[in-house]
C-alpha cells in the first residue's frame, strides 16, 4: 500500500497512541495528543485537495470525506478541551497520571478506529473498526472506576458486544448474498463492488441481513429500544468522551448503516429499508423527548437529546428523497458540532459547580456568564431554533416529508416540540433564576465551544457551495 494521506490518517493516531502510552507527564501527553489530533485534521483536510486512490480496503468518496473531516475536526477541538478538562481532573485528584496516560493512548486509539471505520472499503474491516472503537470507549467510560462508572461501562460493554455480534451476523449474511454473484474471496466484501453488483443479489437474504445490521449498528447509534447503554455511558465517562461519543461515535455507526442502506437501495426487490428506519427513528424521538422531562443529571439529559436527534436523522434517511437525505446529512454534521459544544460547556460547568445534578446548579448566566450563555446558545441550537443551523435541517426534513407522510411527520414535529419543552424546562433552572451551588470563576478553554457554535450559526445563515454540492451528490446516492 503506497503511503498517502489515507494511510497517514490511520498511522498518525496509532503512532501517537503508542507514544502516549509510554510518556508519563500529563502536560506533555496532553500537548502531544492535541498535536496528533491537529496533524490528523490537516491530513484529513488535504483529502479535499488531492484525492488518494481507493483500494479494496480503503476508499475515499464524497460520503466519507465530509465525515472524516468532521471527525478529525471534532477530535481536534475535543483534544483542546480535554487538555484543560483533564488538567482540572488531576488537580482535584479524580484521575491519577497513570490513568491519564492510559486515557490519552485510548483517545488516539479511538481516533484511529473511527478513521478506519470511515475509510474502510471492506465491510468486514469496517465492522472490526467499529468494534475496536466501541471497546476503547468502554474502557474510557470506566476510567473513573467509581461504582457508577464501572456499572455504566459494564452495561455498555454487554449491550455493545451483543450489538457487535448482531452486526457481524448481518455482515456475514451480506457476504452470503454477494458470494453467488461476485464469487468467493475478498471482493465479495468490498463495498464498492457490492454496490456495483447489488442489483443481482438475492433480495430476501439482504432483507434478513439488514435487520441484523440495523439492530447491530443501531445499538451503536443509540436507537430506542437499543439505546440503554448511551445515557449512562455519557453521564459517567469523562466529559470529553461524552462529547466524542455523541459527536462522533454515533455518527460513525450511522455512517456504517448508511453504507448498507446504499447497497439495499441499489438492489431493487429488497424491501426498502425506509419503513424500518422511519419507525425506529420515530420511536427514538418520542421516547427520548419524553425521557428528557425527568432528568436530574445534566449530562444524561443531553445524552437523551442525542438519542432524539439520532432518531430525527434516521427518520430523514428512512424517508429518503434528495431533500430529506440532504437534510439528514446536514443534521448529522450540525448535531455533532452542537452537541459536542454543549458537552464542552457542560463539562466546565460541572467542574465549576462540582456536580452534575441539575438541582444543584442555578443562575449560571449570572455567576459564569460566558459558560451560561454558551450553554443557552447551545440549547437554543439543539432544539432547532433559528438562526442556528439545526433549524435549517429540521425545516427541510419536515417540509419535504409532510406532503408524503403527513401523520408520521406530525408525530416527528410533536416529538421535536416535546423535546424543546423538556430541555428548556431544565435550562431555565440551570441558566436563569437565583444562582445556586458553588460559584468560582471557570478556568476553561472557551475556544472549542464557541468555534463549534459559530460554525453552526454560519451553517444556519450561509452554507458553502462546496459542502452543498458534496451533500447533494451523496443525497442522490442514498436514494
Amino acid at each position, binding site marked *: 500500500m503506497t503511503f498517502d494521506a489515507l494511510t497517514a490518517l490511520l498511522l498518525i493516531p496509532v503512532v501517537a497512541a503508542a507514544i502516549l502510552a509510554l510518556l508519563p507527564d500529563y502536560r506533555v501527553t496532553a500537548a502531544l495528543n492535541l498535536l496528533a489530533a491537529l496533524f490528523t485534521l490537516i491530513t484529513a483536510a488535504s483529502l479535499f485537495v488531492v484525492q488518494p486512490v481507493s483500494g479494496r480496503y480503503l476508499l475515499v468518496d464524497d460520503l466519507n470525506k465530509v465525515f472524516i473531516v468532521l471527525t478529525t475536526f471534532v477530535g481536534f477541538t475535543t483534544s483542546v478541551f480535554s487538555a484543560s478538562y483533564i488538567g482540572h481532573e488531576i488537580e482535584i485528584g479524580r484521575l491519577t497520571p497513570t490513568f491519564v496516560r492510559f486515557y490519552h493512548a485510548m483517545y488516539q486509539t479511538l481516533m484511529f478506529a473511527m478513521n478506519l471505520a470511515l475509510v474502510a472499503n471492506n465491510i*468486514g*474491516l469496517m465492522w*472490526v473498526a467499529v*468494534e475496536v472503537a466501541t*471497546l476503547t470507549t*468502554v474502557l474510557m467510560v*470506566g476510567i473513573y*472506576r467509581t*461504582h*457508577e462508572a*464501572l*456499572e*455504566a*461501562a*459494564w*452495561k455498555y*460493554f*454487554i449491550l455493545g*458486544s*451483543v450489538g457487535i*455480534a448482531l452486526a*457481524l*451476523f448481518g455482515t*456475514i*449474511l451480506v*457476504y*452470503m*448474498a454477494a*458470494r*453467488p454473484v461476485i464469487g*468467493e*474471496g*475478498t471482493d*465479495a*466484501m468490498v463495498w464498492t463492488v457490492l454496490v456495483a453488483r447489488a442489483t443481482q443479489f*438475492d*433480495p*430476501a*437474504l439482504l*432483507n*434478513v441481513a439488514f435487520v441484523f445490521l440495523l439492530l447491530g449498528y443501531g445499538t451503536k447509534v443509540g436507537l430506542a429500544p437499543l439505546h440503554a447503554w448511551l*445515557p*449512562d455511558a455519557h*453521564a459517567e465517562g469523562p466529559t470529553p468522551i461524552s462529547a466524542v461519543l455523541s459527536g462522533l461515535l454515533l455518527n460513525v455507526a450511522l455512517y456504517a448503516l448508511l453504507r448498507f442502506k446504499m447497497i439495499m437501495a441499489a438492489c431493487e426487490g429488497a424491501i426498502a429499508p425506509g419503513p424500518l428506519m422511519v419507525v425506529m427513528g420515530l420511536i427514538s424521538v418520542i421516547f427520548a423527548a419524553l425521557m428528557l422531562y*425527568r*432528568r*436530574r*443529571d445534566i449530562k*444524561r439529559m443531553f445524552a437523551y437529546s442525542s438519542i432524539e436527534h439520532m432518531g430525527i436523522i434516521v427518520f430523514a434517511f428512512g424517508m429518503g428523497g434528495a431533500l430529506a437525505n440532504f437534510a439528514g446529512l446536514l443534521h448529522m454534521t450540525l448535531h455533532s458540532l452542537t452537541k459536542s459544544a454543549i458537552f464542552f460547556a457542560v463539562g466546565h460547568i460541572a467542574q465549576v459547580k462540582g456536580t452534575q*445534578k441539575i*438541582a444543584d446548579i442555578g443562575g449560571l448566566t449570572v455567576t459564569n456568564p460566558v459558560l451560561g450563555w454558551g450553554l443557552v446558545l447551545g440549547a437554543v441550537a439543539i432544539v432547532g431554533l433559528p438562526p442556528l443551523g439545526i433549524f435549517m435541517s429540521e425545516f427541510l426534513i419536515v417540509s419535504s416529508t409532510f406532503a408524503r407522510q403527513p401523520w408520521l411527520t406530525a408525530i416527528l414535529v410533536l416529538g421535536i416540540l416535546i423535546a424543546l419543552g423538556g430541555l428548556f424546562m431544565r435550562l431555565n433552572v440551570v441558566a436563569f433564576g437565583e444562582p445556586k451551588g458553588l460559584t468560582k470563576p471557570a478556568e476553561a478553554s472557551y475556544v472549542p465551544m464557541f468555534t463549534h457554535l459559530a460554525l453552526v450559526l454560519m451553517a444556519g445563515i450561509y452554507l458553502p457551495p462546496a459542502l452543498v454540492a458534496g451533500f447533494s451528490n451523496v443525497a442522490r446516492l442514498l436514494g
Partner: protein
Amino acid sequence: MHGLEFDVAHLLAGSLVLASFMLLYQDRLYALLNVYALHAFVLALSVAWQAFVQHAPHLYITASIALIFKAIVIPVALHRIIVKLGIHREIETALSVGLTMIGGIGLVALSMVVMLRVTPGADALAREDLAFALSVVLLGLLIMVTRRNAVSQVVGFMSLENGLVLAATAAKGMPLVVEISVAFSVLIAFIVIGIFLFRIRERFDSVDIGALDRFRGESGYDV
C-alpha cells in the same frame, strides 16, 4: 461424496443447536460450564470439517482456537472464578426452564422459516448452515435474557458467538474469518470480561448482575 459433506456438516451444525438446548436446560453452573465446553468442542469439529471440505487450511486455526481456547481454557478460568468468588452453584432463572425450552423451540422454528422459506434464492448448503447458526445465535441471546447470573450470561454470550463463528465458517471462502474469531475469543471473551469481573470483584462480593443493576443511574434522588 457431496451428500456426505452435507450430511456431516448438518449433523455437526444440528448437534451445536442441540448443545445450545442443553445449555438452556442447565440450572447448575458447573454443569453449564461443562456443557459449554461440549458446545465449543462441537463447534471445533464442525469448523474443522468445513476446513476439510473447503480445503481452507486457515480454518484449522479457527478450529484449534475453538478447541483449545473455548473448550478448555475459558471453562477452566470460569471454574476458577466461581470457586474464588464463592458463587453459589444454582442459577436463578428469570423464566422457568420449561418455558425457556418452548421459547427456544419457537426460536429455532423462526430461524428455520426465515432462512429456508423466505430466502429460496441463496444456495442450499449455505442456507441450512445459516439456519442452524441463526438458531444458535438466538438461543444464546435467550440464555443471556433468561439467566440472572453473570457467569451464565457470559456463557450465553459465548455460545451466541459460537453461532457466529459457525456462520462465518459456513460462508464459503469468507475472508477475515480467522481474524474475526481471534478478535472475538481473545479480545472479548477473555481479556475484557476478565478485567471487568476482577474490577467488579474488587468492589462487590458477587458477580450477580442483580447487584450491578442496583445502579439506577439516578437513584441518588427521587425520580
